[in-house]
């Protein structure tokens, strides 16, 4: 870029706004489901109006108790969790949690899941006419209890079927969140795009395990958990890169983001937005730090609009 032009851009405030599935976001940064509660937990520490969107804890048709403890443990540059999708249930969410979130000038994305295809559909239907819900994010990393516990998101046919059935029951923008625990992510991404997903987010946690060598017990009561945090970022960047190649719908990048340069990796490989998860635990202000850092980067690099960065990977 010509130096003169770069100089002009430096003096102007770069535009950070992006659009995903018809949803206009002030900036491309939002929390990852399950790391930000229902928003109110972090409101004392962070201006929720400053975020691109708010993503809720995963919700199910009925309240869910979650797993036994220990549910978390720290690993090298990451953590394992097996919370067990504890949540208040969709009706309590709509009645008690949504009014708080609706006060903000920030789109709310409701993450949800089900044990069966019918449950997925029912939760989506109940959210359809709830004001303030900007989009749905469908977590398909869950076992289908009616079909031998096979995880919807690891089987292209099952994923296609469950996404199609949800598609029929909601008019809201539908984001489908992929699990990385598959052999070929592109097959899954194409299947959910074909089934009507308006956008794809990834990655959910990678399955992992840790052992306490003194007691010889797993460090999680559930034995196996999901790995998140900085440790997973290179894997996440690779998977996002592959999905962007395979589909036309916008992609939201997730995995180990705690600083602007982490988010930029995802944007450059082609994600239109990012989610910040585990980093919220480390620093409640992490998302604001990422947003400020993105603005600074754009200014320094002479980028007037963050959209000009998206998908600019040079290979």
């Amino acid at each position: 870029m010509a130096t003169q032009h770069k100089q002009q851009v430096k003096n102007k405030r770069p535009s950070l706004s992006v659009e995903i599935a018809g949803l206009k976001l002030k900036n491309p940064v939002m929390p990852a489901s399950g790391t930000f509660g229902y928003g109110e937990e972090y409101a004392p520490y962070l201006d929720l109006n400053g975020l691109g969107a708010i993503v809720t804890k995963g919700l199910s048709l009925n309240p869910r108790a979650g797993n036994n403890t220990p549910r978390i443990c720290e690993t090298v540059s990451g953590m394992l969790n097996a919370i067990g999708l504890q949540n208040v249930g969709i009706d309590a969410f709509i009645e008690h949690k949504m009014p708080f979130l609706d006060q903000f000038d920030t789109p709310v994305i409701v993450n949800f899941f089900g044990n069966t295809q019918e449950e997925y559909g029912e939760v989506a239907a109940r959210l359809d006419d709830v004001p303030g819900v900007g989009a749905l994010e469908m977590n398909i990393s869950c076992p289908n209890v009616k079909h031998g516990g096979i995880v919807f998101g690891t089987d292209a046919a099952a994923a296609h079927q469950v996404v199609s059935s949800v598609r029929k029951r909601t008019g809201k923008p539908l984001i489908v969140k992929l699990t990385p625990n598959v052999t070929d992510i592109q097959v899954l991404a194409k299947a959910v795009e074909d089934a009507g997903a308006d956008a794809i987010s990834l990655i959910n946690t990678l399955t992992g395990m840790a052992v306490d060598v003194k007691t010889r017990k797993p460090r999680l009561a559930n034995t196996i958990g999901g790995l998140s945090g900085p440790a997973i970022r290179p894997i996440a960047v690779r998977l996002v890169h592959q999905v962007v190649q395979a589909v036309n719908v916008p992609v939201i990048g997730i995995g180990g983001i705690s600083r602007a340069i982490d988010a930029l990796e995802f944007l450059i490989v082609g994600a239109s937005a990012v989610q910040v998860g585990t980093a919220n635990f480390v620093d409640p202000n992490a998302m604001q730090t990422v947003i400020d850092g993105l603005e600074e980067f754009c200014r320094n690099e002479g980028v007037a609009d963050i959209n000009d960065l998206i998908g600019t990977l040079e290979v």
Partner: protein
Amino acid sequence: MKNHKTIILSNQEISPGYYRMRILAPEYSRLAKPGQFVMFRVQRSLPPLLRRPFGIFRAGFMASDCDGMAEKEFIEILYKVVGSGTEIMQELHQGDRVELLGPLGRGFDLGDPHEEKILVGGGIGLVPLYMLAEKLIETSQVRLLMGGRTRNDIITVTEFERLGVETYVSTEDGSLGEEGLVTQVLQRKLDKYPKASVYACGPMPMIDAVQRICAERGTSLQVSLEALMACGVGACLGCVVKGAGHSTENPRYLCTCKEGPVFYAEELDWNRLEQQNSAGGGCH
């Protein structure tokens, strides 16, 4: 509740493996309640990734280094070196940058003024009891029963004495005070002061034994619990304990960080507190 980017004022070993860290902490004297905690982070350090929870031992003011400058407001935390995070902490010095998220959680209820109070501390579990004693001593007779494995685990007892608290020390190896468990001392004190309320913090087997003793006698008991924590603010649901009436059909989990760490004994499910069997189910 706030995240302070701040600095360490001092960090000293007070007994083998136990440290006292003083941290610059604006507003804490006004805000912190007995039994509350902070999520502590060594700035710009990774590992450890997650913050570590520590009880607030006390909050106070100290004279500034320069004349005419405002006094410095600080908190003290006491910690035992047990793993990777606390190993890094023991190497920190005055002026090192750290972050404090807090004060967090529900602290102790002070209970009826003028009623007798018995505090039971096991090892590092003594920490949240000091601020509590400072408050209780204004209106009540306060006794501290302090237990540990050896004399090295008995810390800061003289500071409680200076407040006017009557203290009773016991160690399992008899190297300081009475030989045996702190719960034996508790039985005797409750025989003598049957109307006292009890406040306890320490290792889980001690808390469990204290609960049994108090339940048998109908004694009011508040306990401060520890749990593995990631967020400290009620967002991750990693720190839960089973509440009274919990069952598989009717699960009732309480967040240690938000609904605790202090609970009335009757709020908890004591049959299941220590039971950590696997339940299966999805991730997250």
